C-alpha cells in the first residue's frame, strides 16, 4: 500500500519483510521454513504476522534441524517450489553446510535441474553476542560453485535483492545484517522492483581512492568518506551488494579511475572475501594501481563477547579513516 507507507520510514528489517511478503503474495510457490518463523515471527521478528497472512502451509515452523530443513528445501525446489529458508542466526548454517555445498549448490551442474532456494542468514557482529552468535559466513560459501551470495546494505537493496533472490533459479545465500536491522531507515515507500544480482553500486563518487565494501561496511565507508571529504580527500565508495558473482567491471572501472583500492569487511581477514577482491583487483588493474590493494578486515579470531574485545576485533571508523587517508596520500 504505497499510500499508507509514503509518510513513514522503512527499516532494513521491514524492507526484508515487505519484499518477502510481497513475493509470497505474488507467487504461491514461495514458502518459508525455519525455526520459530511462524507464531513467533522469527527470532528477529522479520516474519511477524506471516503465519496469520499465509497460514501454516506456507510458513513452516521446523524442528531444530538445519540440515534436515535445508535438504527439505532442496527437494521442494527440485519439484518446482521456491523455498525461503531462515537460519535463526547465520552461525547455525554450519549445521547445514553439507546439504548446501554438496547437494544444493552442485545440483544444477550435475544434472541441469534448477534448484531455486533462498537461504536467509542474519549475520555479523557488534551485538556482544560472542563467538557463536556473531559470525560472518560469506567466506565459508563464496568458494562453493553454484551458490550466489548477496549482502545488501540498504533497505532498498534489501528489498530488491530479496525479490531477485527468490526469483532466481539458483540457490542464493541472502546475508542480512542483524546489526542494521533496526539501525537503518529510509523514507517509504520502497520500490519493489528487483535489484539485479551481480551488480555493484557506486554509492559515492570520488577520485582518490576506491573503497570496496558491503553490508555494514558501506555505512562505515560513507561516514569515513564524508569526514575525509572535509580534509579534501575524495573517496569513492563501491557497495558490492552481490558477492558472488562479483561485479568485476564496476570494481575495475572505479579502481582504474582512482588508482587506489581499499577493501573493507567485518569478517576475519585470512581468506575472507577481501582476499578474492584484492587478488582480482590487482589482476585486473595492476598497471593502474599506485600501491597495493589494502584490506581492512576483522581479526583472525573468533568474535569475542566483551565490548572492548569485540570492538577491537572488527573494523571501526578510525581505522577505516586512517587507512583510507594513508592509501590516498602516499
Amino acid at each position, binding site marked *: 500500500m504505497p499510500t499508507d507507507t509514503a509518510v513513514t520510514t522503512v527499516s532494513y528489517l521491514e524492507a526484508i519483510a515487505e519484499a518477502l511478503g510481497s513475493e509470497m503474495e505474488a507467487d504461491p510457490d514461495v514458502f518459508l521454513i525455519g525455526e520459530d518463523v511462524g507464531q513467533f515471527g522469527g527470532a528477529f521478528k522479520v516474519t511477524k504476522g506471516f503465519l496469520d497472512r499465509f497460514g501454516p502451509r506456507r510458513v513452516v515452523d521446523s524442528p531444530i534441524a538445519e540440515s534436515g530443513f535445508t*535438504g527439505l528445501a532442496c*527437494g*521442494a525446489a527440485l519439484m*518446482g517450489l521456491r523455498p525461503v529458508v531462515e537460519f535463526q542466526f547465520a552461525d547455525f548454517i554450519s549445521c547445514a553446510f553439507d546439504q548446501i555445498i554438496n547437494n544444493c549448490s552442485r545440483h544444477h*551442474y550435475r544434472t541441469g535441474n534448477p534448484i531455486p532456494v533462498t537461504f536467509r542468514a542474519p549475520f555479523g557482529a557488534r551485538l556482544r553476542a560472542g563467538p557463536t552468535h556473531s559470525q560472518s559466513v560469506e567466506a565459508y560459501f563464496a568458494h562453493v560453485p553454484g551458490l550466489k551470495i548477496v549482502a545488501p546494505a540498504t533497505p532498498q537493496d534489501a528489498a530488491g535483492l530479496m525479490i531477485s533472490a527468490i526469483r532466481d533459479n539458483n540457490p542464493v545465500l541472502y546475508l542480512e545484517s542483524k546489526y542494521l536491522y533496526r539501525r537503518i531507515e529510509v523514507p517509504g515507500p520502497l520500490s519493489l522492483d528487483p535489484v539485479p544480482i551481480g551488480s555493484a553500486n557506486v554509492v559515492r563518487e570520488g577520485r582518490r581512492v576506491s573503497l570496496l565494501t558491503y553490508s555494514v561496511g558501506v555505512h562505515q565507508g560513507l561516514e569515513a568518506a564524508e569526514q575525509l571529504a572535509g580534509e579534501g580527500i575524495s573517496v569513492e565508495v563501491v557497495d558490492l551488494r552481490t558477492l558472488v558473482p562479483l561485479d568485476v567491471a564496476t570494481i575495475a572501472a572505479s579502481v582504474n579511475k582512482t588508482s587506489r583500492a581499499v577493501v573493507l569487511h567485518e569478517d576475519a581477514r585470512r581468506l575472507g572475501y577481501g582476499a578474492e577482491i584484492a587478488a582480482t583487483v590487482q589482476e585486473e588493474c595492476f598497471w593502474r594501481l599506485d600501491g597495493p590493494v589494502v584490506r581492512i578486515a576483522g581479526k583472525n579470531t573468533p568474535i569475542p563477547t566483551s565490548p572492548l574485545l569485540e570492538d577491537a576485533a572488527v573494523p571501526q571508523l578510525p581505522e577505516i579513516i586512517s587507512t583510507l587517508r594513508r592509501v590516498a596520500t602516499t
Partner: protein
Amino acid sequence: MAERDLAVRMFEVMALMRAVEDRMVTMYRQGELLGSLYTGHWHEAIAVGTAAALRPTDVLAPLHRDLGAHLWRGLEPWQVMASFMGKAASPTGGRDGTLHYGRLDLNIINPVSHIPNNYPVATGAAFALKYRGTDGVAMAYCGDGATSRGDFHEALNLAAVQRLPCVFIVENNQYAYSTPLTLTTAAADFASKAVAYGMPGVQVDGIDVFAVHEAADNAVARARAGHGPSLIEAVTMRMHGHAEHDPADYVPSELAETWAKRDPVEECGARLVELGFLDEDGVAAVQAQARKTALEHRNKVLDMPMPEPDDEEGRVYAD
C-alpha cells in the same frame, strides 16, 4: 496392474537389474568403466518391490543399490552404463558419473555421494507433493550404515512432525563397506528406530519381492491417505564387495554361503512358477532376454562419445 502382470513385470525388472549389473561387472573387469562399480546383487527384490508400489508421479530418492527402481521407471540400461563410463549421453552428460544417474524427468532425484543426504531431500519432495494438494508420495532409500548419520534422524523426525507422505526404506545388507552391523548399531533392528519418530516401522524379508511389495504398498497407502511417513527395514545381504574393487574378505564365509542360497531373482522366478504365472521356460526366457538386453545395451554404449568441455563455468548456474 493385475496380480499376474505385476508379478511378471517385477520379475522382468529384477532379472534385468541382475543382468545389467552382471554385465557391468564384466565391463568393469575389462576396464570399460572409469572407476569402481557399485552393484545391488541381492537388493533386486527391494529396489523393484518398492518402486512397483508407486505411481510414475511419485518421487524416488534412491541410492547405489537401487538400479531396479530406476529401471522400473524407465531408465535405459545403457544410460547407467554410460554413467559409469562418463559418456556424453549419460543422464548427467558426464558431469557426474558412477551411481549418480537419477533422472528428474522420471521423478527420480539424483543423489550425491554423501549418505543419506537424499533422505532430507526426499522429505522436500514429499512436502512439495502435499503442498500442491496431490496425493503423491516420496520414497527414500538408504543402507544400514547410513542410518547412523544425522540426516537420517533429521529427515525422519521432520517427516513425522510434518506428517509428510514419505516412505523410508532401510536396506539392511549386514555391512556398511567393511563395517558389520554390530559396529553400526546396538539396536535390535532398524525397524524399531521408527519408535523414536512416532511412525510405524516394519521389518521385511528383503529377498522376497512379494513381501517387500506388500510392505511398501501398505506404507504408500498410508502416506497417500495423509497419515504420514513410515519406515521399512528390508533385510538382505550385500553379495558383492562394497564396490567391485573390494574383495570383501572381511565377510565370514558361512554368512556369505547362507545368503547365497537365497537368490531373490531365482526365488521370484520359482514363485511365479508356483503361482502358475509363468512356466519354467517362461522364467528362463525372461532371464535370457534380460541378458540379451544387457549385452545389446553394452554394445550400444561402447562407442558413444565422451563429452568435451563446453562452457563448464556457465553450466554451474541455471538461467
